[in-house]
């Protein structure tokens, strides 16, 4: 058996223990979408820039398109389809502001916002810097998303 052959990996996804049998270098995005059917984590640029594929890894927002399966063994992944109450608040604020056009980028953005809120980030400019580095939106829905974020920051202050 070569090191590249499929083998079982145990991880926790959205609060459930799962076992996935796949090659070690399989991108986590592909595991989520094609092994676990969690399609809310979007396939975007696959170049680690656009942020559509963002999830929480042990509570931190990370992109999954270039993240190999071997590196997440035994760790906790939470997706946009998970039960986080913070994420639920973020989603409601985004819907309240109708902060989307096509909506393709939004799940990743909501994941980063909810991770930052969980980490205790309350500073708008810090949040903005992180979003600027890790996420793109092509429809120009940013001003609405920023309004949703302001709403969340007010609520969390």
């Amino acid at each position, binding site marked *: 058996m070569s090191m590249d052959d499929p083998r079982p990996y145990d991880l926790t996804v959205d609060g459930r223990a799962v076992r996935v049998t796949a090659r070690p270098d399989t991108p986590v995005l592909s595991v989520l979408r094609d092994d676990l*059917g969690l399609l*809310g984590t979007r396939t975007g640029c696959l170049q680690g820039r656009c942020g559509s594929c963002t999830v929480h890894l042990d509570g931190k927002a990370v992109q999954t398109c270039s993240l190999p399966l071997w590196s997440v063994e035994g760790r906790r992944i939470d997706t946009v389809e998970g039960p986080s109450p913070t994420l639920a608040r973020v989603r409601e604020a985004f819907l309240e502001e109708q902060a989307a056009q096509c909506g393709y980028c939004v799940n990743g953005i909501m994941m980063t916002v909810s991770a930052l809120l969980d980490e205790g980030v309350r500073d708008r400019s810090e949040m903005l810097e992180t*979003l600027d580095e890790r996420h793109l939106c*092509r429809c120009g829905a940013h001003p*609405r998303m*920023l309004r949703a974020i302001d709403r969340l920051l007010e609520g969390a202050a």
Partner: protein
Amino acid sequence: MTELPSNLKSNPRLDRWIDVAPDGTITIRSGKVELGQGIGAAMLLIAASELRVDPAALTLAPADTARAPAEGFTAGSLSVEHGGAAMRLAVAMARALFMQAAEAALGAPVELENGLFSVPGTNRSVGYGDLAAEVDLSVSALDQPIPVLFGEGDGAPGFRRPDLPAKLSGAAFIQDLRLPGMLFGRVLRPEAPWLRLDGFDEAAVAALPGVVRVVRDGAFAGVVAERDDDARAAIEKARRSARWSRIGTLPTCDEAQTWLDAPAEEAETLLEDAGEPAETVTRLSSSYARGFLVHAAMGPSCAVAHWTDGRLDLHTHSQGIHPLRKQLATALRIAEDAINAVHVPGAGCYGHNAADDVALDAALLARAVDRPVMVLWSREDEMSWSPHGAAMRVDLAAGLSAEGRITHWDCRIASTPHVARPGSGNGLDLLAARDLETPHPPSTQSNFKVPDRGADRNSVPIYALPQRRVRLNQRPQGPLRSSALRALGAHANVFAVESFMDELAAAAGADPLAFRLAHCEDPRAAAVLKAAASAGGWDPDEPGGEGIGRGLGVARYKNSGAYYAAMVRVEIEESVRVVSIHGAVDAGRVVHRDGLINQVEGGAVQAVSWTLMEEARWTDEGFAVRAWEDYPVLGFRDMPEIVTEVLRSDAPPLGAGECSAGPVAGAIGNAVAHALGVRARRMPITRERVMAAMDAAL
């Protein structure tokens, strides 16, 4: 009789638009598709207002070629204007038939409220579902009387788009479709527009894990695999052994763009006013340009194809499923009715992207297997091979009278094609078609004629001007394929017109706002201009020149669509930053106010990105834009404050997705000139271009 909307005339059977089931379920169908613009919400609101039901009680079926009305392309900001008008009348006719049936059933005149037909003063009522068996909707709109229309209402305040909750959670887009037994395909495309595939080590690729089939047809090559990551790995492997040959003699980057710097003289005259020129004391001329823009959708272009017994079932995010079907039938050499295409939303689409191209890719790859195949484009191909926004140059010349009025206006445009959609030319415009063993050549000329050609869009200014002349030098396709991108020629044309209006105002010693108003005889244009200027705090005496400036821009999209004006403020340190956009829009009666604002502001934000940052390039090695890193777009940090006033109007409803692009670009150009005292006339207005403009002014 009132003239029927053209989309209803061409799809007259009412049951193509609406179905009512005995359980009361009402399904509506539109041929206009969801591109991220929220058209689904608008269609539901239109139908709900005419049926007098809660929009939540309606289902909008996906557009398909089997049942939904054929409404051409979802393009040109015409979905509300044309598609919405047809939907409104079709469902109103259906409602009238139900009302007749209700009166027959109840034996008395009825009123309609909340989906119930009731006899006033009694408790006798029936609903749509109760009458479904009585009412035949397979009738023609051509035979129906024109019913009373209830109209747009109040813009549906508080109405939330019904498609968003799903899109902000789990599977929602075409990329998320998972059919039983579905395989994944990817295609091997060259890294330069002048390369053609000769071959690669097919046996090595076929032996890779998960690979089900290697497909070759001429220079078209792809793989089908169990998983998308297997297909990606296989394409990478194929690329490492690929042999390419150079075809044609495409110009280098610099050669191909010489016309942007100095266009050829030959040009077709599109408009020339008769008459004698008034006495001119000052003459001015200026040249403006923009480079190619990358469509750069957030998601990969995607299609799912499945062949059974020579028939093709296709899932696509194309803007025009009927024209696509026609082209696919030719490319695949099968009958048109052997294809059923169903629309599924993809990532935001701003014009002709690769949705149609990937549909042919999927059909070709799926033909080699007996299971459904999803094909996704790579980011590299998305950035390089998707149709680009056209490169344009606009030369303007005008004169001023002693009183400071414009005496003549001369416009000469040079542009690569804006209309190369599949089905809009004389050839086959799906990318893979030219690569097949038996190729189908792409179009050499567009079927589109003025005023729909694109390059001349908004080249005729909104102002009342004498002695106008507009000429077009249509450039052929170059190394970067160009086609329809949001606003088409209006982005560069309005940038040029509005920049030049400020230059003329300066030459006349006039305030830019007053100068525009003095030349404007269209009250709706004047109203948006005044509203934007007032919202932005326009002050004719506001000093500029210290890196802080403000500018105005106005247009009526296509001179027949929505009116929009913007006042933009910029700050310039290293590069230009748009601080705020105060906009005003008149899109006629408003179906969905929040959806309208979302479209107008999204267009404004995208226009800031285009105008300040975006330009596609290629080098002697090939495409220069292969990743987001190669093509920065406006991000969260640089988002302007944006405020939009929606003007009250009783005119027919108009689309608004494209109206803000041109005016915002013009206003930015003017604000930059106000901030620096020198003007940048070539987009994108990057730091280097600003520096060059300042050097040239010394």
